[in-house]
């Protein structure tokens, strides 16, 4: 019974990771690639670690470690993704030609890297 549950969870996790890998290869733009991969890879890795937590039930230390890794992944993956996307926006990574709207255009100060609210500017469409 527990083996069937672990098999199903493993399959879903591996397919989520495969979707992330296909997404990072096929998406046309850095920002789309980031948006696709971080969520799917975190879901897949979390499900596979949950399998490990279920598989070693008599060892409490392994379950604790697996839950700690899940917590750490869900905590750090969005932070890392936000930081690398911010750095990419500053160094001027080009956007996809089909991008219709960029809410950050003109909001960042080029010198100090501070984000303004844009109340002075009325419309900031690309």
């Amino acid at each position: 019974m527990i083996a069937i549950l672990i098999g199903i969870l493993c399959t879903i996790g591996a397919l989520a990771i495969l979707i992330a890998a296909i997404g990072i290869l096929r998406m046309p733009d850095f920002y789309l690639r980031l948006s696709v991969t971080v969520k799917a890879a975190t879901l897949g890795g979390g499900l596979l670690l949950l399998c490990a937590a279920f598989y070693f039930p008599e060892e409490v230390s392994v379950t604790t470690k697996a839950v700690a890794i899940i917590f750490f992944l869900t905590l750090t993956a969005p932070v890392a993704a936000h930081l690398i996307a911010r750095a990419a926006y500053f160094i001027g990574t080009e956007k996809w030609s089909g991008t219709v709207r960029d809410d950050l255009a003109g909001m960042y100060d080029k010198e100090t890297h501070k984000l303004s609210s844009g109340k002075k500017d009325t419309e900031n469409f690309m």
Partner: protein
Amino acid sequence: MTLSTYIDYVILPILGLSLLLVFIRLLRGPNVVDRVIALDLLITIGVSVITVYSISTEKSTFIDVAMILALIAFLGTIAFAYYLEKRGRK
């Protein structure tokens, strides 16, 4: 079919194919940031592979390695983001 053979013949090939696809992006990536997120995803998939392998071989010691690797992936991405931003700023 036991869980170990299922993992060895279905789950690990899927993860290996994912590693191959991400590695193509790591080699091709037009910008530095593409390579950084490809490396980050590569390490995340590595954590998954280590976890699945520890289930398959019933050796729970490998989970420790996965923990350290997850930590290093986060620190690496943070360091890359920090220095890329500093480089653009002069």
